[in-house]
């Protein structure tokens, strides 16, 4: 874990003092809202539908127990006792009052957390694979380089006023759990002739014009990475459309100019600036890598696991869905579901946050991760400790065995909180989860990703959901558009629109029809929803969705 220097701490203290003075001046009437708004946004403070919203960055999703406990304290003291974990590895507080926010930022700074660059047209929180440093399939831990990118980009003078916000994601595994192809820049650690380097993908993004990123370079050596990133972002800074907000993302720049033209420009820029990178960044990277050294794993008896697995069906079911292979076979990666049936996806109460922190301290080498799928991960738990961990989780409503299943839904806040929304997302997620829990079909259906957004901005990643749901406003009524076949992994794909949208009353039955059609159509239990969809295409799902249209045509 990266340890902050005195310089970092002083920087945060100064930023917070500055913002405290700005809030005081706003309340005293010395700053207008027009003057104040950019200042508050620079510190992650939005004004939403019912209240302010403070967005706190969790860099590459990594937290220590003490940090999680501080998030819980803040939720209890200045908010309504809970926080909302988002798809960008942030936590959002939905109910702070303006005059409390400087105190909240100071409390965060005590554990080296902040809200800088969680808004605005800058390089945002760098996200990473939530199994980083633990996954069995990993080539290298992506977090040191994510930290290096964070240090390079934070307050980078050239990149504070980009044409639009800019998102970077990193994975160290061939299996992409960070959705790198839907980011402005996606990085994947790869190996060539025994040397580690980076595949660099640019121009992916969701929003109103979803696009899958294109490979700009298939291998960039580690020491050339920062100058390459600097060259890409400066080319985009010059070329990106500033005349039209909706065309300002790098995905449009790449689309309009073509990847070859972009590559030629990046190459040229790279030649100009390469010499400015004298290798200091590589020294920094070595220091950061040392900070991220793997914990010392123990070797102990795993009989407790085997016993619980054999005699406790609830534990068995949880172990089957919520555990992932660790690179140390005696250990497992635990995914804690924040998707209990009928609850708000991504929300955790202060009590739950404290419990997860305690479990991480006692059984998990003090490490927690936040996934872009709005769950919490304990990356390193010894198998012998898993029954204790599970029992403790279950007692706080955190034992749901549904990771990767139909009720493990990503849902953006939608019109229940977000000022940009055109419809609600949360109740749709709650109803789908509750419905399939009643049907007791969830485990039979198997891996299936439903993702819901309350507007075209696509925070809920609906374009890359196996089943995507987009909430729209049709003449003052909530309406839901379905897309099918999206995928956010290394085989990334944008979902296809299924046809006309559904009203709030019709959407859950419509999803049920799709799932029932899948159960009929699959070759066997091994064939997942996505595989069936890829084999058969949209047509059979469309006729399940719109039976009347089929009858009319017949």
């Amino acid at each position, binding site marked *: 874990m990266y340890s902050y220097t005195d310089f970092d701490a002083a920087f945060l203290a100064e930023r917070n003092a500055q913002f405290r003075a700005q809030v005081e001046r*706003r*309340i005293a*009437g010395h700053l*207008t*809202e027009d003057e104040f708004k950019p200042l508050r946004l620079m510190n992650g403070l939005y*004004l*939403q*539908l*019912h*209240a*302010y919203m403070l967005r706190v960055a969790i860099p590459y999703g990594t937290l220590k127990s003490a940090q999680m406990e501080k998030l819980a304290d803040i939720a209890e003291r200045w908010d*309504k006792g809970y926080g909302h974990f988002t798809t960008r590895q942030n936590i959002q507080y*939905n*109910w*702070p*009052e*303006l*005059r409390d926010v400087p105190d909240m930022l100071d409390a965060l700074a005590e554990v080296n957390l902040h809200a800088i660059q969680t808004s605005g047209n800058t390089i945002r929180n760098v996200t990473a694979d939530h199994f980083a440093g633990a996954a069995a399939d990993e080539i290298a831990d992506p977090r040191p380089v994510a930290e290096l990118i964070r240090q390079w980009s934070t307050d980078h003078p050239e990149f504070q006023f980009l044409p639009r916000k800019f998102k970077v994601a990193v994975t160290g595994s061939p299996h992409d759990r960070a959705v790198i192809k839907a980011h402005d820049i996606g990085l994947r650690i790869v190996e060539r002739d025994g040397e580690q380097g980076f595949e660099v993908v640019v121009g992916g993004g969701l929003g109103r014009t979803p696009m899958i990123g294109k490979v700009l370079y298939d291998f960039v050596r580690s020491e050339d990475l920062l100058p390459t990133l600097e060259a890409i972002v400066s080319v985009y800074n010059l070329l990106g459309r500033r005349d039209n907000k909706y065309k300002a993302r790098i995905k449009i720049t790449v689309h309009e100019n073509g990847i070859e033209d972009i590559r030629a420009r990046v190459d040229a820029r790279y030649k100009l600036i390469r010499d400015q990178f004298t290798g200091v960044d590589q020294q920094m990277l070595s220091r950061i890598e040392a900070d991220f050294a793997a914990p010392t794993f123990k070797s102990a008896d795993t009989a407790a696991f085997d016993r619980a697995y054999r005699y406790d069906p609830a534990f068995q079911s949880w172990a089957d869905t919520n555990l992932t292979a660790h690179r140390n076979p005696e250990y497992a990666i635990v995914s804690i579901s924040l998707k209990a049936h009928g609850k*708000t996806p991504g*929300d955790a109460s202060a009590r739950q946050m404290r419990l997860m922190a305690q479990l991480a301290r006692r059984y998990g080498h003090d490490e927690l991760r936040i996934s872009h799928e709005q769950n919490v991960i304990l990356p390193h738990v010894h198998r012998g400790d898993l029954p204790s961990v599970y029992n403790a989780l279950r007692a706080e409503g955190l034992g749901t065995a549904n990771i990767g299943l139909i009720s493990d839904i990503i849902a953006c806040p939608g*019109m*229940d*909180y977000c000022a940009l929304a055109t419809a*609600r997302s*949360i*109740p749709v997620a*709650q109803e789908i989860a509750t419905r399939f829990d009643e049907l007791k079909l969830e485990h039979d259906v198997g891996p299936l990703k439903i993702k819901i957004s309350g507007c075209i901005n696509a925070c809920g990643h609906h374009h890359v959901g196996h089943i995507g749901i987009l909430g729209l*406003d049709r003449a*003052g*009524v*909530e309406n839901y558009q379905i897309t099918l076949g999206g995928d956010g992994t290394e085989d990334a794909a944008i979902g296809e629109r299924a046809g006309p949208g559904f009203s709030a009353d019709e959407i859950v039955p419509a999803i049920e029809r799709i799932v029932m059609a899948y159960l009929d159509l699959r070759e066997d239990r091994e064939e997942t929803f996505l595989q069936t969809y890829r084999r058969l295409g949209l047509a059979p799902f469309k006729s399940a969705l719109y039976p009347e249209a089929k009858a009319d045509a017949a």
Partner: protein
Amino acid sequence: MPKAFKPSVITANALLEGDVVYLGPDGWVRDLADAEVITDEADADIRLLEAGAQADTVVGVYLAEVDNSSGTPEPTHFREAFRAKGPSNYAHGKQETA
């Protein structure tokens, strides 16, 4: 022909708490039922200017249409209905104190 003016209220968010407020006969109120319903366009323009000038207490002033047929203003769009009530996943926001 210009669109007929529909009954409306003036709404905004409170500067300190951020929550939804409405312009009442004697200043800002928290409950839509206490809002002043404006039926005349010229009147609305003046009241909007007055409200916009109170930038030290509220943020983002605008006019929202209401249905006043029952004598108590009701939202005509679901977005305003959520603003008037609070989120649907928890009994937070306005519904907490209602």
